[in-house]
C-alpha cells in the first residue's frame, strides 16, 4: 500500500536545475517548486504560496528562504513555514539525488 501512496518521481537531471534558484516541476496536476541551494542541496515544496497561491518558483531565493513574487512573504524552503509576522505553511516533499537525477517523493 505504502508504495502506492508515496511514489518517487524522476524530476530530471541535476544540471537542469539552476543553483541558488528554483525550478518548477510538474507531476500530473501537482505543481512543485524545487530549490537547489547548493550544488548538492535540493528541497521541494508545493509551488503555491500559503497567502494567495503565488507561484513560489518565481521568488527571489535568499539562503534557505524564498520571497513570494506576489506580496513578498518569506517562506522557508526546508520546512515550508512562513516567517513571522505572516503565518502559514506550504507542503514539503522529500528530495534526493541518485545517479545525478533528482527524485521527489510525492
Amino acid at each position, binding site marked *: 500500500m505504502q508504495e502506492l501512496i508515496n511514489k518517487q518521481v524522476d524530476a530530471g537531471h541535476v544540471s537542469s536545475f539552476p543553483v*541558488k*534558484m528554483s525550478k518548477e*516541476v510538474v507531476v500530473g496536476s501537482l505543481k512543485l517548486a524545487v530549490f537547489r541551494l547548493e550544488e548538492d542541496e535540493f528541497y521541494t515544496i508545493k509551488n503555491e504560496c500559503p497567502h494567495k497561491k*503565488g507561484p513560489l518558483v*518565481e521568488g*527571489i531565493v*535568499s539562503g534557505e528562504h524564498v*520571497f513570494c513574487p506576489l506580496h513578498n512573504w518569506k517562506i522557508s524552503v526546508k520546512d515550508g513555514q512562513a516567517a513571522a509576522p505572516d503565518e502559514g505553511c506550504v507542503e514539503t516533499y522529500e528530495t534526493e539525488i541518485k545517479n545525478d537525477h533528482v527524485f521527489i517523493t510525492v
Partner: protein
Amino acid sequence: MKKLVLIGNGMAGIRTLEEIIKRDPSMYEITIFGKEPYPNYNRILLSKVLQGDSSVEDIVLNDYDWYEKHGITLRKGEEAVEVDTEQQIVYGNKGEAVKYDTLLFATGSNPFMLPIDGADKEGVIAFRDIQDCETMIESSKKYKKAAVIGGGLLGLEAARGLLNLDMEVDVVHLPNFLMERQLDEPAAKMLRQELESQGMNFLMEKQTVKLRGKDRVTGLLFKDGSSIEADLVVMAIGIRPNVQLAKEAGLEVDRAIVVDDYMRTSAPNVYAVGECVQHRDTVYGLVAPLYEQGKILAEYLTGDKKSLGKGYEGTLLYTQLKVSGVDVFSAGEFVDKPDTKAIRVHDEFEGIYKKVVVRDNKVIGSVLFGDTKDSPRLLDMMKKGQDISEMNKVAILPSEDHSAGAESPVVAMDASETICGCNGVCKGDVVTAIKEKELSSVGEVTAHTNAGRSCGGCKPLVSDLLEHTLGEAFSEADKKQPMCGCTDYSHEEVLEEIRSKKLTLVKEVMNVLEWKEPEGCSGCRPAINYYIGMAHPTESDDDMNSKFINERVHANIQNDGTFSVVPRMYGGVTNPEELRKIADVADKYKVKMVKVTGGQRLDLLGVNKEDLPSIWEDLGMPSGHAYGKSVRTVKTCVGQDFCRFGTQDSIQLGIDIEKRFQGLQTPHKVKMGVSACPRNCAESGIKDIGLVGLQGAWEMYVAGNGGIDLRQGDLLCTLETDEEVMEMISAYMQYYRETARYLERTSHWLERLGLEHVKSVVVEDKEQRAALAERMDTAIAQFNEPWQQIINDGKIKQDYFEANVTS
C-alpha cells in the same frame, strides 16, 4: 642595501614594515618567513569570515601586489626553524638560509589547548587562523552540534559565527559569569541574556574533563559527571606567546620574548614586536599596543640613534566585543574596591549598563554595555589621569544627556583624543583628513587615515565626526538609514564600498560588508545588483538570482501567476503591420485580453510563462520594459505634422529619445512625455522628464509623478535644439542614476537633493554635464535587447522559462 628578515607574516610584523617603508622606502631589502599560506590578513575579522562563506580576499590587509611593489620576498608557507644570531642567518624549513643585518621576530601566539583526554580527536579545533575558520565552515555542512569551550571574547565570537552557520551552539564556561576578565557581573548578565536571545546556550561553571568519541569527537564530559553531545569542539580558552624558536636561538625569554623600550631583544640586531613580546612584564593580546610597538621600532630603526625618543612605555588596554547586536566596552580597573567609587547607570528595560570607576577623583576603569558611545572619552580621561572633581555626570558620560538636541560625544572630544583605538588615530587626524582631502564617507576616512581598518568598532564615531565636520554639506536627509534589516550600512555607504573596493558581485558585497543575513533578502539584493551595474557598467554582469521575477523573465507577473507582454511602440506610434502581428499572436496563444495601456501601447495579458519566448519571437518587436526599473515609455502628442497648435515635432523627438534610452537601468522606473505645445496632451507636467514645445525652444520639466505621490514637475531649463535636449536628458538621468537610492523615483530624489542643487550640477556646470553625459554613453552602450537575447539563448530559456514535466 641592508637586509631585513621578518619571521611571522602577521598583523604586528607587517604593520612594522609599513611604518618602516613609510619613513624610508629604500633602507632595507626585506625577506619574510610566513608559516601560513596567505598574504597578511586581518585576524580580528576572522569571526566575520565565519559568519558568511566569505573568502580570504575579503580580509586581506596587504595583497601580493603590495609585497611586489615594495620589493619584498615573501616566503609563503615557509616556517623559520633555526636562527643563528652569531652568523646572523635564519634557516627555513625548506632548507634555505637567509642572511640578515636586522632580524625581526613577530611570531604571534598559539592558541592554548586544554591538555585533556580526547583533545587530539578530529573535530577539536582552536580559533586562531583561516584554517580554523575553514574547518568550522566545512563542519557546519555535515554536523549540527557545536560546543565552544570558553565564554570569553574569542569564544563568544566563535559561537556567534557557528550560529550563523546554522549550528546549535553550547558555550561551556568555567567561571559563573561570561567574560569575567572584561566585565563585572551585572554587565555579564545582560550580555548573557542578549546572547541567549540570539540562540546561544550556556553551560556555566562546567569544567570539561574529557572529550568523547572514537576518531571524531562526539561529546564532552564534565567534572560534575554531566555530559553533552557535540560533533565540533572549539577551544577558546586563551593564547600562549609563540617563543619556541626565540628560546632555541638563545634570546632571553620569560613568559614571552623580553624586549626593552625600543623593542630590542637580548641579541644584537634582533628585535621583536607583537604578541610574542614581553615588555615591562606585560604581554599584550590586542592590536593597538602591537601597532604602537611597530611604530616605535620603525622610528628607532630609521631614525638617528644618537637622539633617541622616549621609546615604548606600554599601552592602556581596552576591549570591545564584535558580535552583532551587542555593544560591549571594558577598560582599566573596573572592579569595585574599598578605595573606589563608581558612577552607575543600569537600565534593564533598554538593556543599558554603564559603570565608571573612580579613585582619587580620577577615572581608572569602566564597563559599558548596550551603549558604548562614551568609550573614547573615558579612555582619554584614563590616559590623561584627568581630575573629575569639578565634573558632573553628564560631563563624564555625555550620552546620558537626553535633552533634545544632545550632541554626539565626538563633538566634545579634544582633537588629541583617540577615535580608533586599534590604529591609534585621534580626532584631529580624522578632522584634518576630512577637510583637506574632502572626504565624505566612512570608507574614504578609513582609506586615508587607517581609522576603522581593524576591528571596525569606531565606524559610528567616524560617521558622527563626518557629520559634525561637514555640517551643512552633510544634510539631515543624508543621515544614516540602513539599507534593510540585513545590514547597518546605508544605501550611500554600500554604493561607496562597491566603488572603492571595486566589488562586482552581489555575493561579494554582502560578504565584504558583513551582511547579518549572509544571503540578503528581496530588499537588498536587487538594490546591490543595481548599484554594481551602475558603478561598474563594463565590468559586471547582471545577477539573475538578485532580480525580481519581472526583471528576470522580462514580463509582468499577475495575480494568477500568468504574465503580460508589452512590446515597444516608440513614441506611441504604430502601423497596420505591427497591429496585425499583435492580433495574430493574440489569437495563436489565446491571450486573455488585449488592452491599450496608459503608456500609449498595447498590452497582451494572461500569457503563460513558457510561451513568452515564442510570443516575442513571433512578434519580432523589442521589449517595452513595462516591468523594469528602467526607462519605460516616452508618450508623445500629435505635434506639428498634424495638430493645428503644434510648434515642434514632438513625435520625432519622442521616438529619438525612446530609441536612445530604451531599457536603461535606473533606480526606479522613468517615464517621459513630449508635448508640442503647452496644452500638454502628452502630460509632460507629471512625468519624470517632460518636454513642452514652444516656438523655437523646448521647456524641460523634471520630477513630475502621476502615481502614489502626485507631483507637478519643475522647470529645469529651456533648450533650443534637439541635441541640447538629448545631452541634458543624458546628464540629468545619469545624475539620478548615480545619486538616487534604489527604488527612489525622480520626484522623491529631487526633493531630497533640491532643485537648485541639481540645476547647479547639470545645467550650470558645463564640465560636469559633459562628464555625466559621457558616462551615460558608456551605460547605454551596454544595452542588449532582452527579448532577442533570451530567444537566442537556449540555456536561459531552459533555466528560467521551462518547467520540468515528469512522465
